């Protein structure tokens, strides 16, 4: 991860600030930085979004392509995640530099989104056992300012809200052969139901307390963190501990209480934003501002 070098003094300053519930940029421990979301920025995708969380910038493109369903679930479509740590975000990611992190995060997403009822996977089926929609969700990290997983999950939810899947009709001829016809009507599409899509909330343990949405500097002071995926009703769909230090049972409990509270707020905030921009197809992208 993009590194910042902090002296002991600076670290102490940050840790003391967190103890007093006042962080470097004036936030409390449970506040997120300002979030900007825009949908429909890449016109040759089925759905896309660009999200800026202060210094962290993420671009998500979703392509719906036809593929073969997995043998263990012939009646459903599926998702494929790929996280691209672009060298734009940090020279460290040049060449194969970001591969390990990318692998780690893609798996995290894949695991959380495997849960059956997160999306209506059956609506992605075209011909059972033969053909289904595969949603390739590609996440590109463009600028690295801390709290990557949360930003990516927010952007993924926004991009899913923006995704249009063409309507298809299956024509059967007299010999029993099947032919797939994709609607060429620009309005012939259906959208995904995203109310159950979870968001990641990362809680970083700093000193005796924990914070959400840590900046790069705060991440440098953090010994261990807990990544929790929360859905809009506040239920947890997965969690994982990261970092090299240990967490006590009590602090995990405290973190989960915060995660639930913050997660619900985050979902509410994003849903209001998406109701304004979610379906747009003409994002101005990077030219804004």
């Amino acid at each position, binding site marked *: 991860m993009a590194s910042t070098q902090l002296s002991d003094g600076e670290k102490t300053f940050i840790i003391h600030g967190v103890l007093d519930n006042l962080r470097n940029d004036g936030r409390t421990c449970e506040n997120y930085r300002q979030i900007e979301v825009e949908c429909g920025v890449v016109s*040759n995708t089925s759905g896309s979004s660009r999200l800026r969380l202060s210094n962290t910038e993420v671009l998500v493109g979703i392509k719906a392509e036809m593929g073969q369903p997995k043998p263990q679930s012939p009646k459903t479509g599926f998702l494929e995640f790929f996280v691209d740590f672009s060298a734009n975000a940090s020279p460290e990611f040049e060449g194969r530099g970001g591969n390990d992190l990318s692998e780690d995060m893609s798996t995290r997403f894949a695991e959380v989104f495997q849960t059956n009822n997160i999306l209506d996977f059956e609506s992605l089926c075209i011909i059972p056992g033969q053909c289904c929609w595969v949603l390739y969700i590609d996440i590109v990290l463009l600028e690295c300012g801390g709290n990557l997983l949360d930003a990516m999950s927010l952007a993924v939810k926004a991009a899913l809200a923006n995704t249009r899947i063409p309507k298809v009709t299956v024509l059967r001829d007299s010999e029993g052969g099947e032919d797939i016809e994709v609607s060429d009507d620009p309005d012939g599409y259906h959208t995904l139901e995203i109310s159950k899509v979870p968001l990641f909330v990362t809680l970083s343990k700093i000193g005796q307390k924990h914070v959400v949405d840590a900046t790069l500097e705060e991440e440098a002071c953090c010994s261990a963190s807990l990544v929790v995926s929360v859905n809009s009703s506040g239920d947890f769909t997965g969690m994982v501990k990261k970092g090299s230090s240990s967490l006590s049972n009590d602090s995990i409990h405290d973190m989960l209480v915060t995660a639930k509270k913050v997660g619900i707020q985050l979902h509410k905030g994003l849903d209001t934003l998406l109701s304004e921009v979610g379906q747009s197809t003409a994002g101005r992208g990077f030219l804004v501002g």
Partner: protein
Amino acid sequence: MSGLELLSDQGFRLDGRRPRELRKIECKMGVFQQANGSAYIEQGNTKALATVYGPHEVTGNRSKIEHDKVLINCQYSMATFSTGERRSRSTGDRKSQEMQLHLKKTFEAAILTQLYPRSQIDIYVQILQADGGNYSACVNAATLAIIDAGIPMKDFVCASTAGFVSDTPIADISYLEESQGGPELVVALLPKSDQIVEFQVNSRLHLDNFEKVLDMAIKGCKDVHAVLTRVVKDHVGQLASKMSKT
């Protein structure tokens, strides 16, 4: 040539442009705060992002250090969703590596490399959406990013393409025009001195027509230059007005 009529009898191209018209160019400098320089450009539906880090100490292999000039390090990548069909990887394939080499040579010719011996400049470009003219979009974006980083260059580097359809040279060809198999000329130019720093012709082109097509590509570069100059002046103007307020 196949069924598509690239140039209608009335002299219009598929997207409604005249032969000599470029696609609409929109750009923005300074899109990121962490990089030393960054820029974003849209040329029609081709969208590219460039960031510049440096000059800084040489990272990685120390044998790459050059004692009389700066080491220029380029990476070209294409987002997996940038093309019509999804790509399985964003970087490292042969085409990207070739592009990387071309970009490196282009900017070695333009940057005043002798000013920073034993250092390194990283130029990273990424195509977010591909619709023809990827190389030129990258060069133009990288030029803006280098200017944003304040690295001295001999001149802007402006790149553009030209094609040749039914005896008419056409400027700034799109993916559709590119994929029909006609000739494609790629030029990167230092506009003030009319020096060509990168030049490539794909496919067959008769020598009699060569001059015309080259002129069209050079004209394209100069038009791009006019747009880029305006963007840089606007950007610097805004910076200046912000500074004077504080």
